[in-house]
């Protein structure tokens, strides 16, 4: 389903939404709104469809001119559907300035349109019309079949020119009410549930400026996810189910979040951790999360020089309904709720204004400075109701130490996290996640290790590196040492000269001897 309208924060007052708590909720729900910001500058075409492209936003109003035709209409892209377990289907309120409606013509505020290109009188439409029939009249008709209206309000004379406000509310049991300028004009039960789009239709020639609009509807989520248990055995976990991150370090060494072995048992250790989280990789709405905390630093550890090496841990908590898996910092501040196990051994909730929502400091002083027993924690969300449980690890059953209803009455869908805001010094093990949706959509997930590949060491090929490769065309000489080329000629001269010299000397001596003999 394409969600083309703006999502708003889940945060209405209990007074407004008290009526929504009547029925159990089995899956994650959230509400959607559409308002005048969608045409403040221009008609947002991701929110509104204008099939004939002949209607524009002018000065912050959707402007239907006298030149409009019967095809001039504006229809919201969002298709409203029943949200399972909620009472209300939709609320549509709109203010318009009516300049003119031709005699016999009508301008329509419609809900339940089956298409973003629907026409007046189409099947599925519930039309609240301002009709000029010898004076302005208000009518309400439902079209179970095209062109065949079921009259819900006979034409009722109203002051239809100038500023008018029409409000339509429809519940999932088909009851409805229509208010005109603040007064109930019609109510009762519709012949069918008008799931579909809301918008504006006309018979043509209507000069009407829609200056304000508010639409409220709901989305139904039953996310597909997995029940799983993670023990971190073999120094790893399933990265298709879980993701962990330390967003920032602390000044203490070492500071990390990783799978480590403590007393021979592998677990996910938050050691001097700064802001850090463990997240599910799938979204959940109704769920139960349990986990052991087999290691927790309750008393600050110092060395012999009184230097802090590991401070006592910060709180650790569970958030749910989160938009992201991975956060750059303390993303829990954006969560619909964080249920956290605080340093005074009480449990608090962000959704409840950080009020204490549970705890039994006598039976479970889990953060007491002299306490050494490891604990197990439980956080459960079903039908907007949160339960918190705790036990010592060696106990069989959880003790419920707190519970509350979410103020907005909703069960948000999203990722579930275990957080530390830093400095976290604890470990978690034996995580178990169970989908508690009324009609769970469970999927199988393959195992994918969280471990990443570390490359092998480079292999140094000394022989290859030492091989001399000469630029093509250059000669290669061998050996460092004498340059024989430069000595060759001189040596040759010497070699050639020596016998000549010897011959001359011998000849000279012989002649001398001959000279003496002559004497």
């Amino acid at each position, binding site marked *: 389903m394409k969600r083309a309208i703006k999502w708003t924060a889940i945060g209405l007052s209990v007074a407004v939404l008290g009526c929504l708590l009547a029925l159990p909720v089995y899956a994650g729900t959230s509400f959607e709104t559409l308002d005048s910001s969608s045409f403040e500058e221009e008609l947002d075409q991701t929110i509104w469809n204008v099939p004939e492209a002949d209607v524009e936003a002018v000065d912050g109003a959707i402007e239907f001119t006298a030149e409009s035709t019967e095809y001039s209409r504006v229809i919201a892209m969002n298709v409203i559907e029943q949200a399972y377990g909620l009472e209300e289907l939709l609320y549509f309120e709109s203010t318009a300035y009516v300049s003119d409606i031709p005699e016999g013509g009508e301008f329509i505020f419609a809900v339940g349109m089956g298409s973003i290109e629907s026409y007046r009188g189409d099947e599925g439409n519930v039309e609240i019309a301002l009709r000029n029939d010898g004076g302005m009249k208000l009518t309400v008709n439902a079209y179970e079949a095209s062109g065949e209206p079921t009259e819900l309000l006979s034409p009722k004379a109203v002051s239809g020119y100038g500023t008018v406000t029409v409000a339509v509310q429809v519940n999932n049991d088909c009851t409805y009410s229509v208010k005109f300028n603040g007064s109930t004009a019609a109510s009762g039960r519709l012949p069918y549930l008008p799931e579909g789009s809301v918008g504006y239709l006309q018979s043509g020639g209507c000069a009407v400026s829609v200056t304000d609009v508010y639409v409220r509807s709901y989305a139904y989520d039953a996310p597909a996810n997995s029940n799983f248990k993670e023990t971190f055995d073999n120094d790893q976990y399933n990265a298709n189910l879980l993701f962990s991150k330390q967003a920032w370090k602390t000044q203490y*060494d070492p500071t990390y979040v990783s799978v480590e072995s403590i007393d021979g048992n592998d677990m996910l250790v938050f050691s001097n951790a700064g802001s850090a989280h463990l997240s599910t990789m799938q979204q959940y709405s109704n769920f139960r999360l349990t986990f052991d905390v087999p290691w927790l630093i309750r008393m600050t550890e110092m060395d012999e020089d009184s230097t802090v090496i590991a401070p006592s841990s910060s709180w650790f908590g569970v958030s749910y309904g989160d938009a992201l898996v991975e956060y750059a910092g303390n993303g829990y501040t954006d969560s619909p709720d964080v249920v956290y196990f605080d340093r005074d051994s009480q449990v608090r909730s962000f959704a409840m204004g950080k009020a204490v929502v549970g705890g039994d400091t006598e039976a479970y002083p889990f953060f007491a400075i002299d306490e050494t027993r490891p604990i197990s924690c439980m956080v459960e969300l079903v039908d907007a109701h949160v339960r918190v449980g705790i036990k010592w690890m060696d106990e069989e059953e959880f003790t419920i130490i707190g519970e509350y209803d979410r103020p907005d009455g909703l069960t948000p869908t999203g990722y579930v996290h275990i957080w530390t805001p830093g400095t976290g010094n604890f470990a978690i093990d034996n995580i178990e996640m169970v989908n508690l949706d009324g009609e769970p959509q469970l999927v199988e997930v393959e195992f994918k290790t969280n471990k990443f590949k570390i490359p092998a060491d*480079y292999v140094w090929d000394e022989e290859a590196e030492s091989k001399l490769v000469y*630029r093509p065309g*250059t000669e290669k000489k061998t050996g460092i*040492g004498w*340059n024989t080329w430069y*000595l060759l000629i001189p040596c040759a001269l010497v070699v050639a000269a020596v016998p000549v010299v010897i011959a001359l000397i011998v000849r000279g001596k012989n002649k001398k001897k001959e000279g003496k003999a002559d004497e």
Partner: protein
Amino acid sequence: MSKKRVCGLLTAAALLLSCLGVSGCAAKQAAVEPMEPEEVNALTFDAIGGADVMPIAGYYGPHLSDYCYNGERQPSFVTDEFMKLTAESGINLLNHSYLDYSASAKAVHDLLDYGEKYGVGICVYDAKVAGALGDSTPSLTMTAEQIAAYSRHPAFCGLYVADEPQWAGFHLGDGTRTIDLYAPSLQNLSTLGVYGYVNALPDYNGKPEQYRAYLREMITEMDLPYLSVDAYIWDKSNMDFHNYFYIMDEVRDAALEANIPFWTFVQTGSQWNDGQKHFDSDPNYVLNNKQFQWTVSVNLAWGVQGIQYFTLIQPYHFSWALTEPFDFNRNGMVGAWGNINEWYYYAQESNRQIAAVDEVLMHAKSKGVLVYGDRAKQDTAGLKGIIQADGWRELVDLEATGDVMVGCFNYQGKTALYVVNYDYEYAQDITLKLNKKHNVTVIYDAETEHYSAKNLTLPMQAGYGALIVIDD
């Protein structure tokens, strides 16, 4: 004239011709004036072997586990095993381990002990000393008290203080790490006789006047015993060889003027990630071994007396990738999770040569650089350190098929030459032509040979360097 005399003259003539050679070097037998030994002020450390040993540093690491991701924790590198690996690479100094004594005293002490065991000097970072800047700088007394805990350790070589300090006259940046802010700390250390590590900015923007002033400001204000700069050439976005040598030239010049040594950096890989983004690597990692040796060789030729490798360990964010979480092969002698990369072996190779030649180079005064070949001349055009001649002293000329760079040194009155095959792709034979026959010592590929020659032909691997000492 008697025949005997004629014969004698003929013999003498023949012998005389034998000394000339084809090149007709008779005209070049002019005597070379002896050199007076010059003072060489090299920075050395007893912890790594003393005055004959060139500091060879690994920058960044070892450190404790610094990062974790999805349940996996980076190993700690402050281990006996890693220090042994470091020492085996030839690195003898760690100038920035990224441990802070103020937070990790035990780890620093462990590192010092490992350093002593493996002959590796350690520079300590202590935020209480070097992290408080300007007016917050601790007093001399406080500094002395703080460093007393580790400065007497045999492996202690000094304190890491600053990397690339800023200066309004050259590059101000955010203005939080300026020379004047660091100066008080360095002056304290200088007074205490403790070496403070500082590394200067390079000049990639060609502002010579400002750069010269910056270097001198650093030397003066920080009382530096040496000048270090990090400039990298094997970066695809910045392959300007002339700029590289320009930086070297200016730093050398400033160091010579101040009579202090200068150090440089050699990169181990590239594709760094200061911006801490996630990206997939260009699989053609730079640099290869020949380029690596070239880098070390040209630095030695220019008179560098300290080599630093950036980085010893890959910072974890330097490994961040996109398709996969990490690329541990992208840079660093050792990847962020402990795998050995190729640059470890390249450094080991170059360090063997450095260890073989440092006894000379640490006592030699750089007198300039000769260049041969169009490429080498172009890359060094107009630089002060270039000797505009075909030779220097006993070296009268040089013949080669490619470009060559020769560093010229006064080694205690003797001529020493550091000959570099400037071609980082191919081997070549380089022939040194001396004015006459000399006894020479040749150190190449960490092997020492002695020759008596007038012309010396050296078959040299691409990028490699050889030390030639004219013994007489």
